[in-house]
Structure formats: structure tokens, C-alpha cells
């Protein structure tokens, strides 16, 4: 057979490639990825899990809230078959104990693993403040479905003191909750003198301060503003002070069990029979209603607007089917949204190699979350602003009329609705 120019050229190409392979030593198995992220990358080899830290309050009186958040996470994971981009999700769950120290130490355990991608948490704003600082300094991202204290993100359109770059939340920023309660008290209830009790926690203190400021702006007078300690059981001295102040309304944004003690002891004080009682969303919980029963009758609560609609109903049904009980608190919905939002952002930020290896830029993950403008969640359309707030900020004033109807009865009895910029009284 005649050898044409084509066969000659093929020969030279083969020889050239052979020689080139010695000179360059190219190995196609090697990854060509070079991390250019400003705060580093997490590389997940094929088959290896995507590690997500979970920081929640799983012990103590607030444990029901923590558990609701855990269940929101579980439902979101279940929806994805427990996988992100083909990799299993490994959760490293730590209990914060709803305390700042607990939050900080639990966060340490997450950041100690360099392969941790992000954190789902926390339950309480107090532990979120420390955990947020720890994980942000380590380059991680954290998202919460339960934190509502304004100081974690922004106050009055400016970055708050404890705002850290890796922190996001789908729960409402309760900056306006105090204002909503004050406007309702002054304008709707016609109250002009109020007493305020908080527990020194930065969440309750922030809410109390917001209420006082707004109430005085309306023209009312704060006749008493004091605090109790977490763990206090005897509320009689402080209630005596309330009586002495002749306040028409007592605003006490406390957690359980301090809130329970205060309510029950107040009901036993005859001098406070005519005093209006109002608390916040921390007590909009089935366990609270069950614990205090009729003592809570007639009491007002300021809390975020509960999501509603067919998707929420569907989620409630899934929840009940999976856990054999109705949700004790609606915050599991924002937890579910938070987990979904986080997993979605990881998928968007990840660079996938053909081999299955994932590279997740830590800053890119944060930027992806900040860049989310319309994410359809069960609580509504989520939009993350520059401070990390992704949820909506509307509040309802609820009144408990029939404790036997539990949380559902409370949440359905909306007295007043407050949306920043507008407000209306519900029928």
C-alpha cells in the first residue's frame, strides 16, 4: 500500500505527543482547580459528605423551639433525599443551651473541622451572637430560622453591633415588634402608662427598649423598666414594683420558664387584675399555653405574622404525618426555608468537576446568599439584604381567648396587624 502524506503526518503527531508527555508530565487525573476565593474553599472528594454544622438549643425550657428547628432541617433534607449535588449531607449537631457561652463553644466544635461548609442555627439570639462571631471569623456561613433579635443584622437600616458577615436568617427581624406593640397599646388599647420587664438577655432587652422608645414617642409614659435574672422563680417583688408604678399595661418579653412564673404570679396578685398583660413571640408556643392554661386567658402577644396558604397547610400535614403530632410552633416553617435556602446557595456556589469533586468558595457562598432576590419559600418570597435578613418583617398582635384551642386558636385570633409603613386593626 502506498504511504500518503496523511499517514506521515499522523506518525509525526503521535511522536510529538509521546515526547510532549515526557516534557510536561500531564496527568489528566489531576484537578486543575485552583482556589481563588478570598477566604478559602472547601473541597469535597467524590463520595465524601457535605458537612453542615447544626447549632440549636436542645436542652432546657427552650428545647421545643430547638427541636422545631431541627425538624424544619430534617424536612428540607428529606425533600432532597439527604443529598446535595450527589453528595450525602453529614450533620454535626451541637447543643448551645441557649446561652452565649454555649453558642460560642458549640461553634468552636464546628469550625474545628476544616471541611465544615456552613452552619444551620441557632435557636436563641443570645447564642447566635457569639456563634455568629466565631463562625464568621473562621470563614463559615450560618443561617437561622428562629433568631429574631435586631442586633444580629440591622437596626434602623444600619449594620447592628453583633452583625457578622457570614450570618443570615429567614426569621423576621423583630426591630419593629416593639414598635408594633407600643402603637397597638397606645392607639388601640388607649393605654398611657406602661411597665416593662426583661431578663437581661440581649433579645428581650432589645425588644423592651424598642417598645419603650416607641411608646414614649407616641406620647405615653414608661413608669417602670426593670429586669429579672434568668432562672429566677420568685416574681413577687418585681410584680409589687409594677403595682406600685400604677402601670396600666405590663410588657414582659421573656422566655420560658421565667415568663410562666411571672404570668402565674401576676394572676394571683389582685392589684394587677385590671392590668393588661402582653408578651412576645417567645411565648407563642404550645408548651407555654399548656403550662399556664387559663392564666393566659385575655393576654396579648406580639409576634411575627404566621405564614399561611396551601403550601403551609401542606407542610403542616407533612409535619404531622412524619412526627405524629401537630407543630407546636410555626417557626419550623422559617427553619425549613432557612435550610432550603442554604442548600440552594451551596448548589449555586459549588464548582462541580466531572469526577464528582465539589469546590465551594466560602466567600462565594456568602455572596450567593446575598444575591438571592426571589426565592420561593413556604413563608413567602425570600430576599436576602446586605445585612443577612432574608425573611419578611410583618407583625401581628394576638390575644389568647380560649387556651383549650392551643396555639392554633391563638394564632388565628389576630387583633392588630403591623407592616412597616402601614398598620391596621384586624377585625
Amino acid at each position: 500500500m502506498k504511504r500518503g502524506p496523511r499517514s506521515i503526518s499522523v506518525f509525526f503527531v503521535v511522536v510529538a505527543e509521546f515526547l510532549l508527555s515526557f516534557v510536561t508530565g500531564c496527568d489528566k487525573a489531576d484537578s486543575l482547580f485552583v482556589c481563588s476565593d478570598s477566604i478559602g474553599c472547601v473541597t469535597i472528594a467524590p463520595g465524601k459528605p457535605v458537612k453542615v454544622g447544626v447549632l440549636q438549643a436542645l436542652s432546657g425550657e427552650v428545647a421545643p423551639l430547638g427541636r422545631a428547628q431541627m425538624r424544619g432541617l430534617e424536612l428540607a433534607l428529606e425533600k432532597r433525599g439527604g443529598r446535595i449535588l450527589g453528595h450525602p449531607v453529614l450533620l454535626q449537631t451541637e447543643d448551645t443551651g441557649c446561652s452565649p457561652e454555649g453558642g460560642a463553644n458549640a461553634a468552636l466544635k464546628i469550625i474545628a473541622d476544616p471541611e465544615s461548609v456552613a452552619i444551620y442555627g441557632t435557636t436563641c439570639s443570645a447564642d447566635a451572637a457569639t456563634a455568629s462571631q466565631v463562625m464568621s471569623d473562621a470563614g463559615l456561613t450560618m443561617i437561622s430560622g428562629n433568631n429574631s433579635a435586631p442586633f444580629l443584622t440591622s437596626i434602623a437600616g444600619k449594620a447592628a453591633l453583633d452583625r457578622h458577615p457570614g450570618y443570615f436568617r429567614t426569621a423576621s427581624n423583630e426591630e419593629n415588634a416593639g414598635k408594633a406593640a407600643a402603637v397597638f397599646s397606645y392607639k388601640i388599647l388607649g393605654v398611657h402608662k406602661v411597665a416593662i420587664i426583661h431578663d437581661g438577655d440581649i433579645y428581650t432587652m432589645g425588644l423592651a427598649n424598642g417598645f419603650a422608645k416607641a411608646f414614649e414617642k407616641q406620647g405615653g409614659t414608661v413608669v417602670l423598666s426593670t429586669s429579672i435574672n434568668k432562672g429566677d422563680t420568685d416574681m413577687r417583688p418585681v410584680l409589687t414594683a409594677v403595682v406600685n408604678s400604677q402601670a396600666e399595661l405590663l410588657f414582659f418579653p421573656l422566655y420560658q420558664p421565667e415568663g410562666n412564673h411571672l404570668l402565674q404570679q401576676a394572676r394571683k396578685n389582685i392589684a394587677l387584675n385590671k392590668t393588661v398583660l402582653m408578651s412576645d413571640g417567645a411565648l407563642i408556643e404550645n408548651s407555654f399555653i399548656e403550662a399556664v392554661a387559663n392564666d393566659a386567658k385575655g393576654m396579648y402577644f406580639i409576634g411575627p405574622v404566621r405564614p399561611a396558604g396551601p403550601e403551609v397547610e401542606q407542610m403542616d400535614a407533612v409535619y404531622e404525618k412524619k412526627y405524629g403530632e401537630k407543630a407546636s410552633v410555626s417557626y419550623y416553617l422559617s427553619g425549613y426555608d432557612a435550610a432550603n435556602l442554604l442548600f440552594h446557595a451551596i448548589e449555586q456556589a459549588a464548582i462541580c468537576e466531572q469526577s464528582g469533586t465539589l469546590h465551594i468558595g466560602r466567600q462565594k457562598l456568602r455572596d450567593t446568599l446575598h444575591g438571592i432576590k426571589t426565592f420561593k419559600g413556604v413563608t413567602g418570597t425570600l430576599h436576602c439584604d446586605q445585612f443577612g435578613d432574608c425573611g419578611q418583617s410583618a407583625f401581628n398582635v394576638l390575644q389568647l381567648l380560649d387556651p383549650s384551642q392551643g396555639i392554633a386558636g391563638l394564632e388565628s385570633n389576630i387583633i392588630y396587624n403591623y407592616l412597616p409603613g402601614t398598620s391596621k386593626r384586624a377585625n
Partner: protein
Amino acid sequence: MRLLPSITRAWHRAGITKKFSLSFFLLIFLIAIMLGASCFALFYVRQMEEKILTSVNIERLVLEVDSGMELARRLSGDFFLHAPHIGIAAAHQQYVQPSVRQAARVIALSDELRDLLYRSQPSETQQTPQVDLILYLSMAKRFTGTSIHAVELVTKRDIPVNGLVDQMTSCVNIFGASLVSHPDLLALHLKAKGFFQEYLINHQRPVIQSAFNIASSLHLAIINDQTVLREEKTALLAMLNQCRSIAEEIVAIDQEIKGAFNDFTIQSATTRMASQSLLQFAQKETFRNYEKTHFAHKAVLIGMSGVFVFCVVILMLLARKVDHDITWNILRMKDRAQELTKGNFDVRCEDTGEDELGQLARTFNSMAVHIQELVSTLEDKVVQRTAQLGESEQRFRHLAANLPLIPVQGYDCDRNIIFWNRASESIYGYTAAEAMGRKMEDLIIPQAERANFVQITRDWLDRDIAPPSSELIRRHKNGSLVDVYSSHVMLNSTKGEKEMYGIDIDLAEIRQVQKEKASIEGRLQRAQKMEAIGLMAGGVAHDLNNILSGIVGYPDLILMQWPTDNRLKAMVEPIKESGKRAAAIVADLLTVARGVACVREFKELNLLIEEYIGSPEGKKLQSLYPDINLEMHIEARKSVISCSPTHIKKCLMNLMINAAEAISGPGRITISTCEQIFDATMAEKKGLAPGRYVVLTLSDSGTGIAADDLVRIFEPFYTKKVMGRSGTGLGLSVVWNTIQDHNGSITVNSSEKGTSFELSFPLVNNNTVINNDKKEQSEIVRTGSGGHVLVVDDEPQLLDIARQSLEMFGYSVETAKSGEDAIAFLQNNKADLVLLDMLMEPGMNGRETYEQILKIYPRQKAIIVSGYSESDEVKMALNLGAKALLKKPYTVKQLNEVVLLAMPLNNK
């Protein structure tokens, strides 16, 4: 040893292509060996380098892990050191968090180190104890666990309010307050409190044990104290137990913290050994691989050098062989070929073998033999060809020399004439003997052109600019100039010198032909122009004549009927004369238009001249110009021509008038005649056929005619006179047309001394019967015989004039307005004579009417009346038997004469 001779034989047998193929194959094979060796060396060295890199990376990672861990431990230690002073929260942020972050970084580095150790060099790492290695790699993870646990313990113990220490302090204080009323118990309590506070400072186990011991004593004291109430005892004991359990918890935490510290120490010691071991391993590996690389470098250098030297030697041997067998043979063959080109046809190449060069040598030899044979016969052929060439050249030279009509002159670089053919002799007047050796410019170049000729010749020789073929002017020996069309050729002589040749064509004859052609074309154009004008004139003539018939006819009738003394006659007479003059102009126009349309007569020219001179018009002219002397030189007696005498005389009249008007003051007009025979050349010049002619020359001593006018004088309406004064512009046109109609010619010669018209008429045979009778028409008007005349005309006026005129002469007259009416009339009536108009519209014309009439009355007499000149229709009517042609406008007198002619009196 037999191999070498057989290789040598095979080499000699092989062709050049095979030898080169073999050489190139060997070359490529050697290059491939070198490339292969290079690639292997590169591959080996690269592997060694990778190993070295791995070892260096292991060393780097171990050092980074060690330093990272050291930092993490230090920060962790700082936390425990500074927490009591700056607070747990601040210490947490300043020390614990950086420590954990550092540890996390070390964990990542440890993972990287593990990958390096186990993935790339699993066998080598076995040198390090596996337990230590695993411990080392998990060191950071373990540290973080221990460290964070210790921090949690410290937090649990020391945080404000809810911390164990604060709880213990609160408990101790409340318990102390409860013992205020029991001094003994209080003393024990204070002692125990003192130990507890000491423990909080130094954390020494014996100290707290002392506190516990006192607490036990206090417990017994409370039980045994009779002053304390029972309920109070229970409460105090419960409080004491609570405080003790808190203190025990604090102690347990402290112990745990201590355990953590111990753990750190053990970890540090264990991992330090593993670290050192790994470092030693990495350094050893690095050194070992460096050694291997160094050895590989040396081996490659030596191997490559050997292969290179081997290749060079083989290539040199190959080159030498190729040089000897191919190059050297080619050079030798080149030398032989050069010898052959120098003329050595005996040279031959050696036979070098079976390859292509050997075949080439044999081919060369056979070619040399063939060339030798060819050369020997070539000289004979050259002699033969030279002879043939000389003969051919001689033939062409003879041909060129004897060309009859094409002059050829040859001259050398100095313009000396070297060739001069017979035609040159003829055209330039110099014989070849006179011309040869002389310079061209001295001989035939006009004086004014000589410098130019010399320059052109120089340009041609020096710059190769050949002169173009063109018309040139040369000089004849007699000094006259000769027009030629000259082409130029340069040739190389047999001596290699340049020779130039001029090849001329005599343009004299061509010029003559062109001149004559122009003359003929001019005449033709003039004839066409005349014909066009004639057509126009002819068109209006008929209508004008009909109109003029009234102007001439009625005054005539009036004059005839008035008495001679009627004073109005003087007023009517000019009307009639004006009509006649107008009719004359129309007649001239018709002459111009249709030529001289009348019956020819044989007349002597001289008689016609005399008749004119003697006529009233001739006499009148002479009387008008009394200072002009008329001279007659009549030589051509008895010269008979076929002519229209009226027109010939009119020609004479017009020429005479022309001549007289050209003379201002006294002068002379000469009329001469002579007979001439025109040969072909002469006849052609005049546009005539060769033959005998009588020539009438009329010359004057006037001012002559300008050259521009001369060519146009025969055009109708072309006049230099004042229009309307003496001429109509038709005089010379009538002359020209008349001469043309008589098949003659007219030539004009004019100068300042005068003008001469020369009229040539073809002569007729002398035996021809000549009608020279001059019928002097009676001036007396004869009265008609009273015959019956039918007048046919489509013009009512003409009918009326004819009827009145004929009735005046005694004829009975009937009129018809058309041919059809006339025929209808004649169907039932008779007429002695029919006066028949030729052109009638609409309906039949005169000729057709006459034909119809002849069918009724075959001998019917008729006169044709026409306002138009004689046409074919008129001729046909005359041929049918019409007696005469009467032209419109006619006078009464003319009508009467014609009627009398057709119907003589004796016919009555």
C-alpha cells in the same frame, strides 16, 4: 569475515536511489535511537524529581503542622492563663477561637500530609511506626476535642452568675448567713470557707480536702448541736450538702481540666517523636532521590555522548562512501563533459559500476562517439548551406535592386549609401553609380530636414528608437520635392555591422488619383444638389404657369380688342410684360428642374451664336454696354450639334450678361469656337466620353471670380449681384443644366485679368441634314377659319381665355372642365380640334383623355396644353398624334399660331 565483501558487492550493485534510501534510513534510525534514549532519560529524571518534590512537600507539611500545633497549644494555654483576669468571653475570643482555627488549619494540613504519605509512597512510610504516624496525623483533631472540652469545663466553672464558682460562693454566703446565731458552727463554716477560697486560688486537692473534712465536722456539729431546732437542722444540713456537692463538682471539673492538660503533654511528647521521625524520613528520601537523579544525569550524559559519537562515526563513514561512489564520480564526469565542450571528442568516462552513474558514464561515452561522427559531417553541411545561403541572398538582392515601383535605399552607420535600386534611380534621378558611397542627407534629404534626419538615424542606432513608417518629403536630383511613404528597416550585415534601409512608395500617382476623386465627388455632390432644387422648382412651376396664364392671357385679349390709341393700353401692357417675364423665370426654373425638355434639332453652333448676337436681346445688351467691345473668333465653321436652339441661345445670353456685368467701364468680350478631339485623359477630366467636340469659349476682361465663389457659381439662386436688380440667380444654373442636358461640359477659368467659360458640345456627323431654316413668324395675326374647337381644362379662367381668344379668331368654341366631360361631349358631338390640358385633377389627364377620344374619333386632331415642362406623358400624347405642345402661359397670338398649325387654313 565473508560478510564485508558481500556487503561491498551489494553496495556496488545498488542504484543511487537505493544507496540514498539506505543512508537516510540509517540516519533516521540513529536519530530515533538518540530520541529514544533522550526520552527515557527525561522520563527517569522526571520521576526522580517528582519523588524529591514529594519528600520536600512532606518535610514542609510536617514543619507547618508542628508550628501550627505549637501555636494552637500556646493560644489554648493562654486562655487558661488569662481567662481569670480578662473574663471568659474576652479570653474565648482572643485565645480559644484563634487556637481552634489554627488547629483546623493543621487538620487540613494533616489530611494533605496523609494523602502524600499513603498515596504516593505507601511502602516507604512503613519505616515510621504506624501507631505514631496515626497519632501524629490525628493530633490536631484530638487536640481540638480536648481543648474545646477543657474550655467548656472552665466555662461551666467560671461564668458569672450561673458558673459553679459563683453558685458555690452564693451558697457559702447564704449558708454563712444562716449560722450567724450559732457561733461555733459559724467558726467551722468560716474555716471551711477559708480552705475553699484558698483552693480557688491554688487548686490544690489537699486544700479542698481540708474543707471537706471541716464540712464533715460541721455536719456532725449541726446534728449534735442541741441549740439548733430540728427543722433548722434539716434546712442547714440540706444547704451544707448542696454546697458540698457544688464544691465536689468544682473539684471534679478541676481534675478533668488537669487531665486535659496531661493529655496535651502526652500528645505533644508522642507527636514530637513522630514528627522527628517523619522529618528524618523526608530528608533521607530527598537526599536519596537527589543521588538517584545525579546518577541518572551522569548516566544519561555518558549514554547520550556514546550514542552521539557512534552516530557521528557511522554518519562519517556513510558520507565518505557516498562521496566516493557518487560525488567523486559526478565530478569526474563533469570534467569529461567540460573536455568534450572544449572540442576533445576523444574523451571517455570510466565504467564505475552498475548504478545510475555507471549507466550515465556509458551513455556519455556513446553520446561522445555520436557527436564525433556528427561533427565530421557537419563541416560539409556548413559549406553546402553557406553556398545555398549566398545564392539566396544574391537572389533577394537582385530582386530588391530591380523592384520597378518600390525605391529602396540602404545606408550604413555613417549614413553612406550602400544600396540603391533601380526604382530609386527612377524616382530620385541619381543612378546607382552616382549614389553609392555618398551620404543620404547630401543626396535626397531636403535641406531643412537634414539635421532631423541625422538625429533620427542616431537615435535609431544608439537608443533603438526606430523611425515610424510615415509620409516624407525627399529631394529629386533636379531639386524638385518628391512625396513618398517611407518605411525603415535595420539589418545586421554578415560582418555584424548595422545597416539601415529605407523603402519608399511614390505618392505622386496616389495624390493625382485622390485629386481626381475629389473633383468627381464635388461634381456628384453638385449634381445631387441641383436635382434636389430642381425637384422643388418643378413642383411649383405648374401652378405658377396656370396663374400666369390669366396674367398674360387677359391683357392680351384686352389689348387686341382696344383701339390702338386707347390710353389705358400703356397701363395694361406692363401687366402682360410682367406676366411674360414671370413665365420666363418659371421656364428657367423648369430648365433647372427637368432639363431642356424639348425636341432636339441639328444646328450649327456658329449660326446659333450669330442668331443670338443679331437678336433683339443681343442688340439690346450691346446697346446697354457701349464701352464693351465684342470680338468673335469663329473657327468651327459647319460644326453641327444636336441641340435645343432656344436654350443654347439662352445660354449665350446669360453668359454675355454675366460677362458684361463683370466689366466695369471699357472692356472686351471674346467669343470663339473651335473643334477639338478629346482623348481618354482629357475626356475624363471634363467628365465626357472621348470623341470630337466643338468648344465655345466666352471670355471677358472683367475683374474675375473669387476662388471661393468659383465652385458655387452654378448653384441656383447663388449670385453676387444685388438680388432683383439684374439677376435672379438662375442664369448660370440654366447654363449648367443646359450643357448637362446636351451631354457637354463646362469649365471656368478665372483670374484677376478676367474670366473664361469653356463650353464643349459633342459634334454630330457632318452628313446629318441640318435644319437651318429660319422661320420668321409673321407678326400678322391671322384670323381662324371658323372651325369647331373643344377646349378642355380644369381651370375656369383658362377655359374662358381660350374660348374668348378662339372666338375672336372666328372659331366656334365648346368647353369641358374635365376629360370625362370632354368624352361625354364627343360621344354625341364632333370637334375639329381638341385643345387638351395635360394635367387635370381629379380624373383623367390629357393623355388618357386623348386616348379615349381616339377610340371614338381615331383621326381626331388635338393640341396638348401644359404648364409643366415636357414630360413623358406629353411625349406619349405627341406620339399618339397630338399636333403640338402649347406651353402655359400662352399669349393669344401663340394660341392662334398653334391652332393654325394644327388646323391649317387649307384644311377648311
